[in-house]
């Protein structure tokens, strides 16, 4: 099946054909990759984002860090961290942590999963709304900074280890799994498929 694709780098329109596994299509003019063969991108994205969503629950209800500092013991979930920051008067930091680590990742995963599943079943309902959902995910996506948060936690684990006893909580396993699965889901997601499969066949 031949199709016409515009290069995202230089804008040249060109024809490509359906690609075999392992093949990539490069731009005729600038050489950027314009199309890749993806094995069942929709199914893969659906599976990965569902797995990430499942891990979202334990990652948020269980403590990420357990800390013992001269006998004082404390466990904190991400939400605890937000509340503590807010109580300390750092409400802007609290807001950013809440958005970047809880709300946006959740919305992104939910949106991704919804779009992929609906497209997979070739549903023609809600076409207009799906476009909106896609746009929202596209806009808020960069604000999901789970990986940054994970890095911050790991730095705390290593650095604070000299001052206090810092142990990973059971939530950290789920959180790490969620971060990895979210990244994989985003990587396997091919937005073009949504348009290709939802457009009305004349």
């Amino acid at each position, binding site marked *: 099946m031949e199709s016409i694709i515009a290069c995202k780098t230089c804008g040249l329109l060109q024809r490509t054909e359906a690609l075999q596994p392992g093949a990539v299509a490069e731009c005729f003019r600038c050489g950027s990759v314009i199309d890749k063969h993806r094995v069942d991108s929709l*199914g893969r994205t659906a599976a990965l984002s*569902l*797995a*990430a969503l499942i*891990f979202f629950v334990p990652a948020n209800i269980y403590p990420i860090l357990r800390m013992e500092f001269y006998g004082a013991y404390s466990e904190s979930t991400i939400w605890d961290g937000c509340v503590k920051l807010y109580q300390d008067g750092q409400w802007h930091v609290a807001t950013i942590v809440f958005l970047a680590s809880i709300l946006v990742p959740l919305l992104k995963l939910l949106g991704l999963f919804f779009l992929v599943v609906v497209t997979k079943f070739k549903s023609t309902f809600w076409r207009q709304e799906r476009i909106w959902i896609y746009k929202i995910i596209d806009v808020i996506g960069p604000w999901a900074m789970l990986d940054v948060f994970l890095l911050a936690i790991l730095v705390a684990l290593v650095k604070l280890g000299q001052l206090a006893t810092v142990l990973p909580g059971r939530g950290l396993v789920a959180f790490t799994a969620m971060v990895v699965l979210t990244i994989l889901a985003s990587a396997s997601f091919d937005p073009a498929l949504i348009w290709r499969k939802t457009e009305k066949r004349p």
Partner: protein
Amino acid sequence: MTDSPKKSGPVDKLPRAKVTQRRWRFPVMWVVPVVAALVAGYLVYDQVREFGPTIAIRFKDGSGLKAGRTPIQYNGVRIGEVKVVKLSDDLHDVLVEARLLRSAASIAREGSVFWIVRLGTELQDIANLGTVITGAYIQVLPGTGDPKSDFVGMEGSQAALEPGGLEIVLHTNHLGSLKPNSPVYYRGIEVGAVLACRLSANATVAEIYVRIKPRYVALVRSGSKFWNASGANVKAGLFSGVEINVESLKSLVSGGVAFATPNDPKAGLVKNGAVFRLYEEAVKEWLEWAPRIPIPPEENSYQHARQKK
């Protein structure tokens, strides 16, 4: 892709393989969410498995208790955690809701005694110095009755005594330095403690409520004599020099009661609520009394351990 149809040759004579659409392929990718569900389910199950029953404890004073932070301990081991601290409906008491670990679920039974261990201002509270760093915690002494979930917490650490001991009342004209938690000595060994001190109903004497540990209950007989062992007894004579009598350093600080029991074997055991007089000091004769009274062996004691060998 297929070669162009212009080429023809022997290849064309080969039979064409049959191409069919496979109805179902194993969706390898969907193993990921299944594994995720199993792992997440295990994490949740593992946590839920630790949860024991929730209990409610009523205290007069809730200072130092923090929801989600204050542990419940037994023998120095964490067996639960305070979940909610709130005032009772009539605003008189503090209601504490706590969740026990499943392994300690059997603590929630009739007869269990809960009290808050925190650092007070009394010098004798030095034993709780650790709570400066760790914060207050709730200590429990398990009972043996039927399961139950509502408890009334004890005030102060007098509850550290095992339940079921003997409670007696001492009358005295002058309380001195006695106060709740002051020790009760028999031959210098701590066998009980003062529970409370108050003025009698007609204000003629001070009443001291004393609890003797269950193990030593047999020591108190109807003829027993109690005296105030508070402070130091200093005798200075021109020829004898200075003689200082102190029951113990603890009694010097917090006051104390000592008692002796006469050699009379007929003197009967006393009941809860028995009233004795508290003398200002001991008569010399009392100190020489040495009745033979069998007392049950102490659990886990040094001697006990040696006897087993």
